């Protein structure tokens, strides 16, 4: 479903952020991308969502050849991908419900769908009761759950989580990982970029290890390793 084929990315005035990276991710997999800061995890995510173009190689997602998509084709791709970030990226002026709803609004979904789907997804992440709260009234863990709800609202084929637990305490972090596993068990592919050894080791799922832009290890049931 996702294929990186000999992908390199060189930012101007910098050494290679990715160097000839190839891998495949199948439907329904749960994959952890691990490595130090600057190893290339974020670059892989940006290439996948079309935010950046590879310097060399091909990035395939389902039927999309992401590296060849035009600006006006990107929104379609992005509606197939749910993204979750360390800093949540919620809109401070909207409450939890609105933060989730507007992802459907901008995709031109009818109001009826929005009224049906948003409460469902908020219930799924355990925030049914807090739907009227604004981000500043929510804890870090709760904010991240709103972000997950927003990522899930399109029923995307894949959810990409970029350090989703980076700003959270271990208990909240564990909750978020549990939620990602639940999403995965419902058939959604999950890509988790992290540098937390505890999380990766506890998952016992596939691990791709990056170092200095190179793919150094790809284990079906991996452990976090320092290379």
């Amino acid at each position: 479903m996702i294929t990186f084929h000999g992908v390199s990315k060189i930012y101007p005035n910098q050494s290679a952020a990715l160097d000839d990276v190839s891998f495949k991710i199948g439907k329904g997999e749960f994959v952890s991308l691990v490595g130090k800061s600057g190893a290339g995890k974020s670059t892989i995510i940006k290439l996948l969502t079309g935010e950046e173009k590879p310097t060399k190689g091909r990035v395939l997602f389902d039927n999309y050849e992401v590296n060849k998509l035009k600006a006006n084709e990107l929104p379609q791709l992005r509606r197939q991908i749910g993204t979750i970030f360390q800093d949540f990226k919620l809109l401070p002026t909207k409450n939890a419900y609105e933060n989730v709803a507007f992802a459907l609004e901008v995709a031109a979904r009818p109001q009826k769908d929005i009224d049906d789907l948003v409460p469902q997804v908020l219930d799924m992440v355990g925030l049914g009761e807090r739907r009227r709260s604004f981000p500043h009234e929510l804890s870090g863990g709760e904010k991240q759950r709103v972000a997950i709800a927003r990522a899930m609202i399109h029923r995307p084929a894949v959810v990409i989580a970029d350090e989703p637990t980076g700003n959270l305490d271990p208990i909240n972090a564990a909750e978020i990982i549990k939620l990602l596993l639940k999403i995965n068990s419902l058939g959604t592919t999950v890509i988790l970029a992290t540098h937390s050894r505890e999380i990766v080791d506890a998952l016992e799922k596939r691990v791709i290890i990056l170092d200095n832009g190179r793919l150094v290890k790809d284990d079906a049931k991996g452990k976090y390793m320092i290379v």
Partner: protein
Amino acid sequence: MITTLSRILKYGLQNFQRNGWLSVATIAVMLLVLLTFQGVIIFGATGGKALEEFQDKIDISVYFRPEVSEDQILKVEEALEQVKEVKAVEYVSKDKALEIFKIQHQDESVISSALAELEDNPLLASLNVKAKDPNDYSTIASYLEGESLKSVIEKVTFKENRLVIERLASLVSTGRKVGLFVVLFLSVIAALVVFNTIRIAIYSNREEIGVLRLVGASNGFINGPYVVSGAIYGVIAAAATMIFTVPAVLFAAPYVSVFIPSMDLTQYLTANLFSLLVYQLFFGVGLGVVSSAIAIRRYLKI
């Protein structure tokens, strides 16, 4: 499609509100442009009317010597009617001239008592000649000043009027040109202000724009609200222009009609209220939309 449009409108309105003071300043500058534009339109209409009225008043008056008989005058009239540049010829007899004179000066007791003293009618019979085109008067004048008529004609008056009319015409056309130039100049300034306002709006919303992209908002959905705010500036400025115009015109109307009796500004305004509003809307919205579109192209990287 309709849901998307209404959502774009909603977000546009939101942008507009969130940039409160900036919006007010932008609208104020646009208001200045539209008021000037409105002024040029109304000045043009008034000036045109004045010109029309004066042109209608131009005629050549041919005064005949006192000894010339009415038959002779009527012959000249017939001859003049054959001249192709002539639109109409009106005969004013001595008695009629006196009558007109009396009416014109009825409030002035000195003149009326002086007239009563006179036994003879001192006024001359005349023909008032109107041309089809104001430019033809010189042709007609030269015909009248020809040798054949010299013996019967006392004087031909026309030159004084002509100068006034030419001056008025050039005044109106220069006024229009200067007005349009000012409109153009102010438009550029207003466009820059709108441009900057939208730029700041884009800057202060950059996080939201990032999130919009993240969740797969189409480009139109990201751009649209800014174009909508530009249009809202135009609509409000146009409406405000009309609100300022109406009392100003009502105030000026009596003064204008002193100078140009046939120009009823109040009536002009009521008759043209709708089309004036449409012009203002077109101009205002056009200005707003174009300048925000430029700002979007420049600052909103998708």
